[in-house]
């Protein structure tokens, strides 16, 4: 129930954020989708023990969140919800990988700790970039971008329909769950005797709804094709943004910026 409610709220929060009008929001959705995908692949392409050279990539989410006027709280909250499982898997690395790999004064740092740190930073980067994409673009525009980059139309339509009715059904489920909870006093979840009938009723209702939607579609001339309106055009702004982001990513990939900075400042250590 709490999960149902928080899911619904989370969906609405992100959806709200996507309606803002900032520079980032005004970019073509294709530009943002491509940049995000490149970013994620780039982050994961760093070697397992890479820590320092990942850090400059933090500029990307930080800059986007500032320019896109996104609040930190919901994104950090989401991150904390996702983190435990990944961190749990990551924590095995220090256990199984104890080869010393770097030295800090008299401390030997093992490969396990380094890779654990690397996983955590990668988690931070990939999670925030996905959330930022949707919070600055919105589901509908992402779908237009998907069809623009060649995703088959039935898939795009399926995502759009699913997303549209997710809002309706989450609300309906929330009410059903509330009705159940108001009359059950023992536990927080659904008692096993009600599993089939509760979910089954909801399912039948959902299928009836699908039938009504289909009829409504037929009434407006539906013949198996869903017309999607054309997407926004690329502008100079988009080209510049793409160029800037991609060159920054390449810079980060091939030059260890913190290392260079540090070497510059600490100079004589070598």
């Amino acid at each position, binding site marked *: 129930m709490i999960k149902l409610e928080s899911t619904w709220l989370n969906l609405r929060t992100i*959806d709200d954020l996507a309606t803002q009008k900032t520079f980032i929001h005004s970019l073509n959705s294709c530009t943002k989708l491509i940049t995000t995908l490149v970013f994620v692949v780039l982050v994961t392409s760093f070697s397992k023990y890479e820590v320092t050279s990942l850090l400059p990539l933090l500029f990307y989410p930080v800059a986007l969140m500032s320019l896109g006027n996104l609040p930190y709280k919901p994104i950090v909250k989401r991150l904390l919800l996702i983190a435990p499982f990944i961190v749990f898997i990551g924590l095995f690395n220090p256990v199984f990988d104890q080869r010393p790999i770097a030295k800090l004064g008299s401390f030997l740092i093992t490969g396990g700790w380094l890779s654990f740190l690397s996983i955590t930073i990668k988690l931070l980067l990939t999670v925030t970039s996905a959330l930022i994409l949707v919070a600055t673009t919105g589901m509908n525009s992402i779908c237009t971008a998907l069809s623009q980059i060649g995703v088959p139309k039935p898939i795009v339509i399926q995502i*759009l329909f699913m997303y549209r*009715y997710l809002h309706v059904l989450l609300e309906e489920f929330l009410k059903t769950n509330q009705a159940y909870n108001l009359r059950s006093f023992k536990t927080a979840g659904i008692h096993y005797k009600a599993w089939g009938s509760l979910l089954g009723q909801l399912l039948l209702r959902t299928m009836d709804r699908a039938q*009504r*939607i289909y009829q409504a579609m037929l*009434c*407006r*001339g*539906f013949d198996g094709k869903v017309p999607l*309106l054309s997407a926004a055009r690329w502008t100079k702004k988009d080209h510049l943004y793409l160029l800037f982001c991609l060159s920054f990513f390449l810079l980060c990939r091939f030059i260890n910026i913190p290392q260079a900075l540090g070497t510059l400042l600490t100079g004589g250590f070598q």
Partner: protein
Amino acid sequence: MSHHTIDLTNILYTYPDGTTALRNLSLHIGHGEAIAIVGSNGSGKTTLLSHLNGVLFPTTGTVNIGGYPVVQGTLTHIRRTVGMVFQNPDDQLFMPTVYDDVAFGPLNLGYPPLEVEKRVISALKTVGAYALKDRPPYRLSGGQKRAVAIATVLAMDPAILVMDEPTAALDPLARRQLITLLHTFSHTKIIATHDLDMVLDLCKRTIVLHNGSILADGPTLEIFRDRDILEQAGLEQPFSMQSCPICSKI
């Protein structure tokens, strides 16, 4: 707009599960009429409406709209003529944004893009929802959803407007706005509803359904004065016709 009459002759409809929802129903509706279809839950209102644009086909009997029989081959024409506003606007608004949704019908009818745009804008302006055009449907209030649902139908420029419970779940203000809006339409209007006060406001003629057949058909005021008929159909006189509970005057 040509003369669009509706003729139902000896309609019988049985659902696949064996329930008979309409029995031997015959009906004539003239051009430009505003008609209310009233009756208790399960009296067959929605089933009857579903016959008017070929969502359902009668088991026996014929439906004729503007001289065309409602059969598989005439559906495109029929659905262009008869605009249907569903009971639950969430079922009707399935596209990602209000604009896309209103454009869905005209695009399917094959209009060129400029014409589609013109129709969408004009339909949205008619129902006073133009400012909402970029919103997704789940971000609308109940009244706004209803208005947009009507716009989706208006954009197809139908001659006949069929509505199922248009005032259900609307707050008083939204309901009043809707009634005012419907007053401005010159279309043939067929409204199935429990809101008898709205009927009094909008429709000159009322058809009372009971158990799938017509119990009464006539001028609205006459029917609403007949308490026996209303009682038999499981209805109640509209509030505005009941005597005042405090001073007992009408």
